[in-house]
């Protein structure tokens, strides 16, 4: 069983992020982390391939910055890492992105299952996994909260999917693409040996030409980034004699605000 997972680097969730005078997004020199939602997809990939004796590959599409996420993935226990970089390609355009991603899957050839995190914490385009599935003609199972059964021999998968109204149980044939939710597992931390091995790894870089992919004109463009208007809050710490006094004042305020 060959399981592939996709990831990339994102700014640390605690980083201050702003738009500078040139209109570019900046987070200063704060380090990037592996996209936090992908800790769950990486863990799931490692657990499945360990128990089935299969193969695991992680792919990032984009510039060298994403090598950090790939090294983190290797340090956790993914076997192989690949970076796909096409200078000039707009990887934020999901049709462009999925063209490169599909090319990489085709080049690997023997992929049974692809696992994504629920979303990317920075751009959260909500499209990557689904659009790759459509391009490959594979089944998409998104928002998976549990893999109930995975039968490599029969080529089937059974999952529990989270919808706002509850949990749906679905079965499908492989190859398939799934995106997983937080809570599906407890992601492991890379250990010292893993980190040392990952630091030495040479990560191959594939280009569009290597994949035989011709990229279309991007379907979307980001026109501009801007800082949200500052939120002017003045906090009223409710004063009063005792708890009952304070809650009466609070309730009165909430009625004045017309939120009740």
């Amino acid at each position, binding site marked *: 069983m060959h399981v592939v997972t996709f990831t990339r680097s994102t700014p640390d*969730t*605690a980083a201050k*992020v*702003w*738009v500078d005078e040139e209109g570019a*997004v900046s987070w200063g020199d704060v380090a990037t982390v592996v996209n*936090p939602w992908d800790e769950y997809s990486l863990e799931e990939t490692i657990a499945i391939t360990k128990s089935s004796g299969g193969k695991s590959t992680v792919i990032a599409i984009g510039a060298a910055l994403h090598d950090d996420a790939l090294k983190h993935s290797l340090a956790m226990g993914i076997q192989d890492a690949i970076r796909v970089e096409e200078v000039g390609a707009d990887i934020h*355009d*999901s049709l462009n992105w*999925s063209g490169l991603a599909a090319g990489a899957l085709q080049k690997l050839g023997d992929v049974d299952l692809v696992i994504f995190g629920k979303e990317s*914490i*920075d*751009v959260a*385009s*909500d*499209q990557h996994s*689904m*659009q790759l*599935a*459509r*391009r490959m003609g594979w*089944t*998409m199972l*998104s*928002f998976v909260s549990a893999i109930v059964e995975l039968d490599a021999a029969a080529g089937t998968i059974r999952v529990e999917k989270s*919808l*706002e*109204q*509850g*949990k*749906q*149980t*679905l079965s499908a044939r492989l190859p*398939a693409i799934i995106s997983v939710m*937080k809570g599906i597992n407890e992601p492991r931390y890379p250990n010292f040996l893993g980190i040392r091995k990952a630091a030495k790894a040479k990560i191959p870089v594939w280009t569009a030409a290597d994949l035989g992919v011709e990229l279309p*004109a*991007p*379907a*979307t*463009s*980001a*026109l501009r*980034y801007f*800082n949200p208007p500052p*939120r002017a*809050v003045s*906090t*009223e*710490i*409710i004063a009063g004699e005792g*708890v*009952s006094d*304070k*809650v*009466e004042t*609070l*309730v009165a305020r*909430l009625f004045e605000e017309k*939120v*009740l």
Partner: protein
Amino acid sequence: MTVFVWIESFAGRALSSSWEALGAASALAADLDCAVTAVVLGANAEEIAAEAAGYGARQARVCSDASLSEYRLETYAALLSQLVAEHKPKAVLAVASNRGRELLASAAADTGNGMISDVIELRLADGQIIGTRPAYAGKVLMEMTAHTETTFVTLRARAFSPAAAVAGNPPAIQRTAAAATPDSIASLVEGFATESGTVNLTDAAIIVSGGRGMANNPRNPPDGLTGEAAAIWKAKDGFANTLAPLVDVLGAALGASRAAVDAGYIPYEHQVGQTGKVVNPDLYIACGISGAIQHQAGMRNSKVIVAINKDAQAPIFKLAHYGIVGDLYEVVPALTAALRRRLG
């Protein structure tokens, strides 16, 4: 020319959030000087289309083929893609629910069109559809546009006003056949388990959330429980017997911080924040939550924020409109009682 809006339904009933999508679609269609077409798929599609007409959708494309009675991405996407290819709408709108996200992304890929997701503002400039959306957990905003014939747009829940009800407009309903034949369907629905009585966080007008502070419950756990197990018992008891009554009296949804989720006090479905749900209520009441930046990312845009925390220095007070410094196990029951007197 038309603007499509997918009217999401569950168990044969339209979700009320769909009227927000219809409201956004009507505003866009008015700017484009065209009509809105409601796309209604699944059980009761015609009744739902008639209901949509009551909110201003004059045209509807409906299909209630048996293969659509349970929502499934393949069957829904196949039909939506086919309708888009045939009618080339200027835009396709839906709420960014889990289904809306995957359905629109899939149909956009099928038809080679661009998509803008999680939009909070939509406008037309020189015939171009421009969507404003948050990025980097709302620390930054961005404007996006698509260059394709159709623009797919998912809308953040509660960011757009619902369409207004209009009287006496029977919809022009067009029936369509299902696009996918059963043997081309790769996944099968085996079951569905609903969580009874839960209010959807992203649609909720009021949210009451609990954090790690829920573990400081003065009630004593049953004999034999110590350490972490005792803390879990105390927090669970607090969620069930202290927060739940406040939730009930307000008709609110129950949220939580990640610390509470990770400690096993409450299931992940309730988590608000950067790796949980992003919510947009009129009123957010944070109880025993410190207000870490990742929690703020999920609730910062709530209209009115109330914090109940015993630490006057907690960062949540910088964000809150109203704060009570005190023990939540004293404040929340008193607040519940006061509200019950006022709200009945």
